[in-house]
């Protein structure tokens, strides 16, 4: 394996990361969107869509919601984001 180059600043390995955050089924049920909520989000995004397309997108958004719910429910402690995803790794 290649030797990794040192990174600037504190290496992520030195940060107290939860190695294996407790993963369980997230509490509660995914919060499904209704047509009104989606319409508001589309206005914020400056997307003007037909009713037909709003219905299609609503189905897609709600299809993704369980994945989003699982992610939101994870307790990651003090874990910082991998912003500007570091190709040099930790």
């Amino acid at each position, binding site marked *: *394996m*290649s*030797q*990794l*180059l040192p990174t600037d600043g504190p290496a*992520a*390995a030195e940060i107290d*990361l*939860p*190695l*294996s*955050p407790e*993963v369980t089924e997230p509490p509660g049920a995914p919060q499904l*969107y209704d047509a009104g909520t*989606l319409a508001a*989000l*589309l206005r*914020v*995004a*400056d*997307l*003007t*869509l037909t009713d037909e*397309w709003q219905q*299609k*997108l609503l189905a*897609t*958004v709600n*299809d*993704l*919601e369980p*994945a*989003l719910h*699982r*992610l*939101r429910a*994870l307790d*990651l402690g003090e*874990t*910082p*984001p*991998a*912003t*500007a*995803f570091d*190709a*040099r*790794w*930790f």
Partner: protein
Amino acid sequence: MSDYLTISDALDALRDNKITATELVQDAFAAADAVDSELGIYLARFDEQALAAAAEADRIYAAGDPAGALLGIPLGIKDIISTLEGETTAQSLVLDREWGAAIGDAVVTARLRAAGGVITGKLTTMEYATGVPDPTKPFPIPKNPWNTDYWTGGSSSGTGSGVASGAILGGLGTDTGGSIRIPAAFCGISGLKATFGRVPKSGCVPLGYSLDNIGPMARSARDCALMLNVLAGYDASDPCAAEQPVEDYVAGLTGDLSGLTIGLDRLALVYADRDPAIDPAIDAAVKALTALGAKVVDVTLPLWDELSAATRITSRSEAFAYHAPDLQSRWDDYFEATRQGVGAAVAFSGADYVQAQRVRRVGQKALAALFETVDLVITPTSSVAGWSLDELGSMTERFLAMHTGYFNAVGNPALVVPMGFNDIGLPLSLQVVGRPFDETTVLRAGDAFQRVSDFHLAVPPMMSSVAVA
């Protein structure tokens, strides 16, 4: 098809004067002529330029100084990567055709060309490297050479079907959630998503900035190694490019797996409708890897659902940031799947995006801990061998069935190689994953497996009737 299925064999034949580069390129074009109207491989062909490049390669071979590592090899470029010849369209009505023209050759295209590769043309993709075909748009529908009722997989569709049909010997794909590995798997060839940052991607239309990779697709792991030798290495024009030492990936292909411990995660529970042929094929692959000297142990990849979800949130959010202005003004010009996939990001908050990046950091560390106990991890590339073009299913169903996005979230290198066929003759695929920047071991395992198997050399039945001069 040409007598020479692999880049490696073609290079040997060129050096031994058994074939000329001109003949090799003509054979590739003849194969494309025979099947492209049915398979949808090319968006644009560069016959004149390619034959001129092949003639120049022949001149160099004749002069006795064949220095280029890919000299005279016909290679195709997925049409989200820029080339000097032709337009870059991203298979979309939306992309400004001046985008590619202003760039010329992307770094990777220039590297292939400098190594003597013959660029034969631009290959089909899914629009902007995401989604599924849209028959209402004026672009070819990529079909699988193993069964034309089936999709090639995406998004590097033309590269997959092009290699499988002999229209090219190798090509470039891109991979944000599996777009090299899935069409490679469905088309029965090999494909490598190297470590994030290993191959510079400037000159490629972005999909998910922090997930995108450019990589080789070819019949064999050895061919992928030959191509990676040319493609890998830092370039300052890509802010994501890694300043890591580059190894000679071909030199690492020893055929011996002695001393390696390989973790097997069958991912048996992540998709309900699993093809029953997959587990017997995995069992056979494990037996072969064991016979080659490896020790195979069962493992569980950490945070599977969470990292897979992180890839979905990240890719859609990053794509939405790029496409928002055009989605606002040209919604109807996009493929339906692009509108649904990228447009869904309106439901993600800034906090959701950041949470996804936190999960990625935790996941990298958890996976690194696993890699302290094993040298490689193997999984099936997908729980299905493909989808009929009539039944492509929902985005979520496809995402759950394909076991590739996880490794975009963490960035590790992942090679896919054919490992058999299902009961209707569609290829099955094995995914081999390594530590960050350890493509050498990944390719060694794939190559060793291919020394004791021949699935990667199988030719789709439709090609058996295609003879070339």
